[in-house]
């Protein structure tokens, strides 16, 4: 009964979304106050019904209602409560329901916090978001109904993909979706502004905090996913350039360009039509990401459920949303005039360069992700471009970006004196370059130019960022949160660069065969293999290894890597659960390999210097984004 209520609520939400998408739009065009005023209550009503639907599906998972096909496929009786709740978004149908729920939450948040907005603009924004919702509801109702029943109901279900039974991954999709979907707000504002024909700096001011929040979620979500892959896949890697990872990275890159470009548009009234285009692009990338993940056009580790009929639907949806907004852009953006003037040596130029570099990076990822598809479409065969391409591209793109990151924030708006900048930054540049180049030599006695440049880059970003903080404190009495947010995010970038450089150069990995009692030395750490015992989890049995790690004779850590077999899985797919000892300087990482003979095992041991800096850097960026939107000036305007 409850699943039917869920389905019914979904249908009602679909109906409300249509009303929300159409009526206020017509009202705004006709200047009809009654029709315009419908937008806000419609947003609320939609949220109510989609929440009911979501709660109904969660309920079905919690009480083990296996008569619901989706539940029977992705949970079983022994699955712990946490993974029954997260199982809701463990596969396609539920993920889409979560998408719709999050979109509705964002819509309602806009309805609440943007009361100061002109009524017509507000109506258009909510209507555009409503139309996007319509697409997602239709997608669910026609191709992926999460409430579909089966008869007779099985006594027990299939387990959730064991890869997904990890706290890191349980929260990765909601965070990621908050980011993806959050870009719909900037998109809706941009489209509403194009529709209304009023593309002034106001729309930038309104959409800026929303975009920053979405960006923060996306940053955090991607970092969580990367951290999960590191701990769960047992390969010791943190990024694989997998199509699905790229699908989340592309909106991040465009989103990063967008938050910088919005700053220029809001503060200086420049790049207006460019910013609008970026807002459309950022959300288009999110939709494209969904298409890539859900249609199965690119085969990948992550594409758990794929179905071509869904692909066709999403492609049509993509055409309508992106096609029409780009057409609108082509039609309307001609009338936009940027008002601000600036010289070539100014912060505006620096931000424009930032955008150019980030979009170049996006293009590189895009080409790398889509290239296999092009080759396939031409009938040459399926290929994958893989790591070397992406690593080279990013080394090339990040150099100018890092350089710019040090200079840009130090520059003044409108026009700056190149002598002044050179004077204030030359010493930092020389110092970070020479220290950076020297560092690899200090670490292991070998000069390594690439590593040296990477570390120099990290130092350069960190020192210039701290210098602009120092200047700000010295010259101004107040320190706005938005400025602090930027400082923190840029410092995060420095940490990220440092972490990546260190891990790429100095990581050590070894596959070793060990008998119990035997030891192996890796990077000065002594790993002693104690043995293996059997451990039972709530819904799995595991062989758990035990390793003691000693540093100069002193025991510093115990590692317990596991090899798990989950019950309820038809295919015998053992999962590795790595065990990691982390600190700021290095990670010691062990994963179980194979049993060799009676007692010996093959084990994978890794030494990963400063890898935690990668995620810590992302966390800094996330917190920076949150600080930036907590700034007083946004709160005042909302009242």
């Amino acid at each position, binding site marked *: 009964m409850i699943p039917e209520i869920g389905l019914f609520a979904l249908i009602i939400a679909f109906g409300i979304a249509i009303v929300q998408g159409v009526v206020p739009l017509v009202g705004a065009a006709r200047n009809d106050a009654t029709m315009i005023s419908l937008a806000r209550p419609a947003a609320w009503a939609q949220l109510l019904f989609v929440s009911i639907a979501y709660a109904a599906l969660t309920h079905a998972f919690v009480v083990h209602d296996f008569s619901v096909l989706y539940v029977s496929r992705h949970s079983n009786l022994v699955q712990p409560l946490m993974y029954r709740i997260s199982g809701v978004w463990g596969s396609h149908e539920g993920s889409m329901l979560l998408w719709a729920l999050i979109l509705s939450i964002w819509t309602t948040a806009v309805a609440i916090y943007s009361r100061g907005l002109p009524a017509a603009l507000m109506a258009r924004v909510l209507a555009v978001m409503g139309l996007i919702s319509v697409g997602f509801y239709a997608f669910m109702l026609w191709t992926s109904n999460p409430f579909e029943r089966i008869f007779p109901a099985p006594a027990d279900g*299939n387990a959730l993909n064991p890869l997904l039974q990890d706290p890191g991954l349980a929260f990765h999709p909601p965070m990621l979706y908050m980011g993806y979907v959050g870009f719909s707000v900037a998109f809706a504002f941009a489209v509403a502004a194009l529709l209304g024909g009023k593309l002034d700096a106001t729309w930038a001011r309104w959409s800026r905090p929303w975009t920053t929040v979405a960006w923060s979620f996306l940053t955090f979500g991607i970092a969580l996913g990367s951290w999960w892959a590191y701990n769960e896949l047992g*390969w010791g890697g943190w990024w*694989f350039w*997998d199509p699905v990872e790229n699908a989340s990275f592309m909106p991040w890159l465009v989103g990063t360009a967008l938050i910088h470009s919005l700053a220029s548009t809001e503060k200086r009234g420049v790049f207006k039509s460019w910013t609008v*285009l970026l807002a*459309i*692009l950022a959300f*288009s990338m999110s939709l494209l990401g969904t*298409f890539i993940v859900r*249609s*199965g*056009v690119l*085969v*990948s*580790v992550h594409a758990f459920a*794929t179905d*071509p009929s869904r*692909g*066709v639907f999403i*492609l049509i949806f*993509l*055409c309508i949303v*992106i*096609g029409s907004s*780009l*057409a609108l*852009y*082509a039609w309307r*953006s*001609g009338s936009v005039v940027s008002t601000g003037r600036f010289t070539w040596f100014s912060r505006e130029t620096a931000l424009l360069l930032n955008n150019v570099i980030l979009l170049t990076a996006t293009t590189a990822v895009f080409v790398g992700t*889509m290239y296999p*598809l*092009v080759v*396939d*479409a031409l009938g040459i*065969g*399926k*290929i*994958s471009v*893989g790591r070397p391409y992406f690593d080279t591209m990013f080394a090339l793109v990040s150099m100018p970006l890092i350089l710019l990151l040090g200079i840009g924030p130090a520059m003044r708006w409108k026009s700056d004196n190149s002598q002044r900048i050179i004077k204030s930054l030359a010493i930092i540049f020389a110092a970070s370059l020479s220290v950076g180049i020297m560092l690899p030599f200090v670490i292991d006695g070998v000069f390594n130019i690439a590593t040296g440049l990477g570390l120099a880059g990290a130092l350069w970003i960190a020192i210039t960022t701290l210098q602009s903080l120092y200047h700000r404190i010295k010259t101004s009495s107040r320190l706005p949160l938005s400025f602090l947010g930027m400082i923190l995010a840029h410092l995060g970038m420095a940490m990220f660069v440092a972490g990546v450089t260190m891990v790429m150069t100095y990581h050590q990995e070894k*596959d070793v065969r060990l008998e119990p009692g035997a030891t192996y030395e890796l990077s000065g750490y002594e790993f002693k293999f104690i043995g293996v015992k059997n451990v039972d989890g709530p819904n799995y049995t595991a062989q758990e290894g035990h390793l003691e790690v000693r540093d100069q004779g002193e025991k510093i850590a115990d590692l317990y890597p596991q090899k798990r077999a989950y019950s309820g*899985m*038809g*295919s*015998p*797919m*053992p999962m590795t659960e790595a065990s990691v000892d982390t600190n700021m300087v290095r990670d010691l990482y062990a994963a179980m*390999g*194979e049993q060799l003979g009676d007692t010996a095992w*093959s084990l*994978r041991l890794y030494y990963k210097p400063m890898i935690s800096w990668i995620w810590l850097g992302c966390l800094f960026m996330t917190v920076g984004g949150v600080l930036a939107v907590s700034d007083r000036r946004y709160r005042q305007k909302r009242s």
Partner: protein
Amino acid sequence: MQRFMPLIIFGLLVVLLAVGLTMDPRLVPSPLIGKPAPAFELPLLNGEGVFNSEELKGKITLLNVWASWCYACRQEHEVVKQLARSGMNIVGFNYKDKKQDAQQWLAQLGNPYQVVVADEDGRAAIDWGVYGAPETFLIDKDGIIRHKVIGPVSDQKNFDDLMAVVKEISGDNL
């Protein structure tokens, strides 16, 4: 004109994606099913010597197409190893790969294969109608291809389908 560029680029992209959708390899049944396995003679990945497809006869065999650049192959590898442990005869078909990368990959993740052949330029794979990696062919005692899995065998449905055919043809002895 400049304003129309994004729209035009997007249009081209849609065409590409649409073609991509129709190319979904999972929908294409292999015309080779029920036919004798295409002949090949390929060098071994480890060590000297060659392997002739004639040697596939006499035993039920899985021919597992993999490559070190393929992520899904990593994912299915545990299951391939399990199958090997359960007594299945598995021949590895290393597809469009560098010898060194492939050897390192096996050293790291374990080698469940009776024998691994290297098809560096992918010529032999064309005869087998290989779309990409991973793919797995089931060959019976008479050297007839009985089933083909496109994508990882660790996928629940792929695994069940494969096992059903294995059961059907194996009778009493593997």
